[in-house]
């Protein structure tokens, strides 16, 4: 060993904790920065309150206000649509229902391009099939094996579960046989082209399904959705009434059906009828011999973000807080250059990368705590105000709520580190602030409020740091539900944590470049 320079000399503490402490002292002794961090939290909360106060909603027709109808909630806690025509009977204990489906037809009212006539047609997610359900209350647990308009046979359960079976439709020449078997809490779906050779489609476990459940036939048909460009940017969605009709025969229920004969009714009926239902074909069942012809409208599916207010809307103020935060984080490093303090700092700790690391730790932690406090206050308070104003806030699980709050705090913390890195990279506060704000906020503006097409908007939110806002998405997109899943409705192209990871990647890259630059250049 010939080297005599030890990385740390006796008597001088150069631990990382010491550095962090020094940086923390620098941060907390600048009064303006501390006030600005308080303002970050305040702006976040106050803008949330403002937007909650500005959102009112009521039900009823014309000047008559009535209580809004209760929205059913599925077994998973999510808001659901549970509206279909149900021909059913009781089944106690284990058993099975087998049917042959020979036709699935329907009508669509006033579709594009001319919007002037009612045409025959089946929407892609119209459903006809067999179901075992915990009673007829909307939102109760179920498992169903259905043939859909354009997605073949599906095994679905509890609104969110969906397993694909064989594609194709049904006709008198090539009917589809469907069988749903209950064995304890396990329900299994089988299908067959001929009633002899059966293939398993999927299974579902419905914990807590009571001994006596309702078994029977279901038909439903969701609205036909079209989307057109809105003048203020974004888009306008229109949904038109549709109805599906399924023809079933060879209906056979095995098991203890002593509870009574077939009965029928509309689950989740709205109490109103469209003109088509009044004058042509109401939702219902016609029975002739062993053949059931069932017609229905509606959907059995989780509700999308358009059918209520998303809980993450209460944290819109985080955008404003973030801009303020970017300024503080940038100044945290550029002020040292302006005042010449950086020379003292680097004299005290010559390993420059560690200095920047300590700064990043301090600004990241301070921001995370500030953001978390703001989120923990804003989310429940604003949700309460929104509900008090008659709005329907889509329910989410406590885990999702936790992810929203902690994720927003983490997003702000990463934004602070990113801004700090840009500040160290550019050494000019003004350039760093501009770059950070443009990169963080502009993609979101372009994606949600411009004339950019949806595909481009989604790529923006995949590739830019603004992908991180996916961490706030509370309502997932379901491929088995017809919907318009675009950023402006709160659907991000990346999963929540992947979106945040993209941003973390950018922040790490910026920090790495800043360290390289700090090492190579004179301060």
């Amino acid at each position, binding site marked *: 060993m010939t080297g005599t320079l030890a990385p740390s000399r006796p008597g001088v503490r150069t631990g990382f904790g010491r550095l962090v402490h020094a940086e923390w002292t620098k941060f907390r002794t600048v009064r303006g920065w501390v006030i600005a961090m308080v303002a970050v939290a305040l702006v976040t909360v106050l*803008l949330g309150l403002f*937007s909650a106060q*500005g*959102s*009112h*909603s009521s039900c009823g027709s014309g000047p008559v206000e009535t209580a809004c109808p209760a929205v059913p909630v599925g077994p998973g806690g999510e808001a659901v649509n549970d509206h279909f025509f149900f021909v059913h009977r009781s089944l106690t204990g284990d058993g099975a229902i087998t049917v042959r489906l020979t036709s699935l037809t329907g009508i669509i009212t006033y579709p594009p*391009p001319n919007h002037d006539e009612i045409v025959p047609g089946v929407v892609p997610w119209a459903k006809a099939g067999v179901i075992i359900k915990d009673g007829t209350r909307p939102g109760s647990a179920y498992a169903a094996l259905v043939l859909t308009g354009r997605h073949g046979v599906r095994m679905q359960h509890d609104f969110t579960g969906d397993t694909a079976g064989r594609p194709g439709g049904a006709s008198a020449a090539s009917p589809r046989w469907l069988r749903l078997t209950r064995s304890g809490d396990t329900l299994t779906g089988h299908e067959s082209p001929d009633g002899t050779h059966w293939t398993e489609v999927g299974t579902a476990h419905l914990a807590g399904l009571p001994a006596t459940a309702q078994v029977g036939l279901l038909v439903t048909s969701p609205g036909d959705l079209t989307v*057109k*460009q809105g*003048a*203020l*940017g*974004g888009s306008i969605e229109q949904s038109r009434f549709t109805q599906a009709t399924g023809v079933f025969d060879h209906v056979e229920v095995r098991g203890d059906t002593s509870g009574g004969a077939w009965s029928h009714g509309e689950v989740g009926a709205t109490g109103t009828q469209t003109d088509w239902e009044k004058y042509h074909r109401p939702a219902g069942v016609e029975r002739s011999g062993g053949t059931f012809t069932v017609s229905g409208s509606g959907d059995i599916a989780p509700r999308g973000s358009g059918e209520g*207010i998303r809980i993450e*809307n209460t944290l*819109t103020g985080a*955008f*404003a807080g973030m*801009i*303020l935060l*970017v*300024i503080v984080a*940038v*100044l945290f490093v*550029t002020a040292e250059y*302006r005042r010449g303090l950086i020379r003292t700092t680097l004299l005290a700790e010559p390993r420059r990368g560690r200095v920047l690391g300590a700064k990043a730790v301090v600004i990241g932690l301070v921001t995370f705590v500030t953001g978390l406090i703001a989120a923990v206050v804003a989310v429940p308070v604003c949700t309460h105000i929104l509900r008090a104003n008659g*709005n329907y806030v889509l329910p989410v699980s406590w885990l999702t709520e936790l992810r929203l709050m902690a994720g927003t705090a983490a997003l702000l913390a990463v934004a602070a580190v990113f801004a700090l890195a840009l500040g160290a990279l550019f050494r000019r*506060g*003004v*350039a*760093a*602030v*501009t770059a950070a*704000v*443009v990169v963080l*906020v*502009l993609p*979101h*503006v*372009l994606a*949600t*409020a*411009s*004339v*950019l*097409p949806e*595909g*481009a908007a989604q*790529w923006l939110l995949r590739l830019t740091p603004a992908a991180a806002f996916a961490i706030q998405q509370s309502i997932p997109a379901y491929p088995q539900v017809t919907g318009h899943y675009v950023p*402006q409705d709160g659907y991000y192209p990346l999963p929540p944590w992947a979106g945040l990871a993209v941003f973390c990647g950018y922040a790490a890259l910026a920090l790495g470049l800043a360290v390289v630059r700090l090492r190579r250049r004179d301060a």
Partner: protein
Amino acid sequence: MRRHLHAEWTKLRTVPGTGWLLLAVAGLTVALSALAAAAVTCPATGCGTDTTKLSLTGVQLGQAAVALLAVLGIGGEYGTGMIHTTLTAMPDRTTVLTAKAAVLAGLTMAAGTVAVLGSVLAARLILPGSGFTSAHGHPLPSLADGATLRAAAGSVLYLMLIALLSLGVATAVRDSAAAVGTVLGLLYLFPIIGHVVSDPHWQRRLWQISPMNAGLAIQSTTELRSLPLTPWAGLGVLAAWTAAALLCGGLLLRLRDA
């Protein structure tokens, strides 16, 4: 006044960042506009895209470079202490600010014109390849068309107003980083918040007072009736913000120590 203008022109011309920022205004605007034009397709069934507005999308990015340029126009002087020399040499502060505003407005108009013409040219080259043809009801954006000319000229004016707005804010705030943060916040936050408020009445009102939403109404050429403001009234909203910022900055410049 000529002396003032000459002084401000010399200062701005000899600061190393100015040339790059003017290039950035034109370059970023054209680049984003071209990307936006390349991202759309028009199927044979037709599409409701406002091609003029689309081809000027880049202004939303270019304005950030304009804001940076204008903020540095006075913020840079505060940062280096040059402002003391300036005000000693030219004690009439209103005239100093006016001269700065005039020089910045001129430069931004020049860069903005290049940016807007470049964007329209890019759209003319790119859009026909994605199905935007006269047969589909989308003739190429052309400056001979009255609405398109209004959108293009209005976009140049928009960028100029953003420069003056930024100058006013920077004069009032005196710190470049804080000033540019304020300006960008003012521009970008309104569209985001307006998008979240569910009450349509509030939504329209926020749109009407938002400098960016209202100001960019000047770019719209289709469905003008559904806009909360007419294009020129929208640009007027931005002009009001600019006037308020300049007035505020000018008053503070006169009243405060530098």
